[in-house]
């Protein structure tokens, strides 16, 4: 570990991790083991990467809220403490081919991965508008950066202590119209992502949504982070947000059916993809992953020290 600093209500932890920094693409995450070598906390904690920098051969920073036993332990680390880290994991944000008007929407420290994304988008000639939100002013992450490098930056807080009072979705339509938004990149609680997708659908704007679903392993083995997602073939599958996400096309996620097994999902009780009598002959039962996998380098596992 290199540094740990306070950022308003959150902590930002920077690791010297050249192998992760080199492979990282915006939207990907890392997992860390918490509690030290003899820990009783078996689940790895997943965090979106906020930023990578070339110094010290490559550093990786992530932002967290010290709200549970694992994250409180992280907040007690000191420079030079080792931290068991795996990454980069997951599918990154897809980038538009042509210069586009991009709206980057983040709630709480969910906005952390958006700034590295903004840098990539700018390289491609995209314009960036930010919409950030949180419970209160001290929980809005990155407002200063957003103001500095965005074409516009709007903020909404539930208590009205910063920007507009209310949810981010309150300002969304106005920004879409004014900025002539082509695509929305959103990283927020699923309840917000659902609203954002609903509004964007009315304007026929695609949403790339980074979901924040609790994970225990981050590598796809535990099957704990599944959510119902419709594939491009029209079939709904329970997919893992760690390996098939965390970024999903908003219109493909069955937001209303989270925490359920939709009756028409592949393999649901009584499922029959081809109506009564089962599938037509010759139809494969499982046509694989819902979307083609981008070739990415393998993640690294290492204990990184500062």
């Amino acid at each position, binding site marked *: 570990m290199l540094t740990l600093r306070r950022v308003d209500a959150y902590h930002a932890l920077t690791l010297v991790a050249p192998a992760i920094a080199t492979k990282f693409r915006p939207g990907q995450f890392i997992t860390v083991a918490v509690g030290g070598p003899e820990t009783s906390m078996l689940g790895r904690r997943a965090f979106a990467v906020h930023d990578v920098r070339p110094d010290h051969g490559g550093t990786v920073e992530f932002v967290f809220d010290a709200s549970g036993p694992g994250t409180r332990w992280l907040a007690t680390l000191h420079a030079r403490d080792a931290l068991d880290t795996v990454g980069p994991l997951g599918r990154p944000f897809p980038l538009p081919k042509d210069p586009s008007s991009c709206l980057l929407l983040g709630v709480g420290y969910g906005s952390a991965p958006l700034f590295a994304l903004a840098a990539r988008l700018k390289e491609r000639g995209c314009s960036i508008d930010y919409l950030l939100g949180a419970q209160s002013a001290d929980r809005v992450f990155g407002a200063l950066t957003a103001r500095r490098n965005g074409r516009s930056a709007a903020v909404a807080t539930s208590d009205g202590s910063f920007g507009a009072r209310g949810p981010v979705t309150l300002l969304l339509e106005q920004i879409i119209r004014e900025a002539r938004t082509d695509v929305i990149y959103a990283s927020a609680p699923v309840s917000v992502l659902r609203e954002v997708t609903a509004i964007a659908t009315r304007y026929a704007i695609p949403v790339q949504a980074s979901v924040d679903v609790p994970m225990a392993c981050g590598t796809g*083995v535990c099957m704990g982070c599944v959510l119902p997602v419709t594939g491009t073939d029209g079939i709904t599958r329970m997919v893992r947000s760690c390996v098939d996400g965390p970024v999903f096309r908003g219109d493909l996620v069955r937001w209303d059916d989270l925490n359920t097994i939709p009756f028409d999902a592949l*393999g649901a009780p009584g499922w029959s993809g081809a109506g009564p009598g089962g599938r037509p002959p010759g139809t494969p039962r499982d046509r694989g992953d819902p979307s083609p996998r981008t070739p990415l380098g393998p993640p690294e596992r290492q204990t990184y020290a500062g």
Partner: protein
Amino acid sequence: MPVDMRARIGLVELPNLVLAASGCAGAGRELAQFIDVARVGALISKSIMAEPHTGNPSPRLTETPSGMLSSVGLQGPGIDAFLQRDLPWLLSRGARVVVSIAGQTVREYAELAARLSDTAGVTAIEVNLSCPSAEDAGRLFALDPQRAGSVISAVRGSARYDIPVFAKLAPDVTDLVAVAGACVAAGADGLSLINTLMGMAIDPRTMRPALAGTYGGLSGPAIRPVAVRCVWQVREAFPSVPIIGMGGVRTGRDALELLLAGASMIAVGTEIMHDPAACARVLRELEEALAALSVDRAADVVAQAHGRFPGGLAGRT
């Protein structure tokens, strides 16, 4: 001198006795990013069912002290996709594959075993008996010696003769030896001990069960003493039946403990979620621990704790 870590399942020799437990190694691809799957003793697949299965709603997992409580509900692609996609991939990487099967009826188990018998490259079949029986009001097969035995007998009957059948047993029974005995009598070539223990957690904030499935299977180091006890008891009763020991193995030392209790192979499970390279690490640590004890062959320590060789291995060079 390097320690001989080899083990044997039926006719297949495994390069080492550290396996990846069912449901903890995904389809193998997930681990291949971190370790060479060919160097794992054998990979035990997620339990495969006849049809694709969505599993349970979320939340499915919750962390408990030194444990993981999970209720995934056997989400899986079904045997067709497994045979078309997952098994060939594993074999192409040089992995040895023990296929775990799960069913709701005795017949479903038997049909799965028959399908696997038509396929090359199945090292063994592990029968996951912790499945609700559609023929017995949803009671788990593993809870009843007779029902467990009838599944094993059907599987043994339809599986090719040279594919060993291992029965995976649940520890939540009054008399584990009775269930193990019924499985052995029904033709099981070996036993996998133990499956998870049934547990439950309640979230005080929501005042509701933490898992959508209400109950979950408890795994991780929290259950290791139960695993050691179960392996010990079953080994005492059936000294000639091979046991794959599993339950909370985190280090080479833990693996050694299960070997001493009577397991001839061990499997690493939940620890893989914590450390994706756990199988390779546990193997290395176990080898070091055995070398430190001046043991030449891992097989020599199996069941040593039962004291059939007074004074242990000391002076037995």
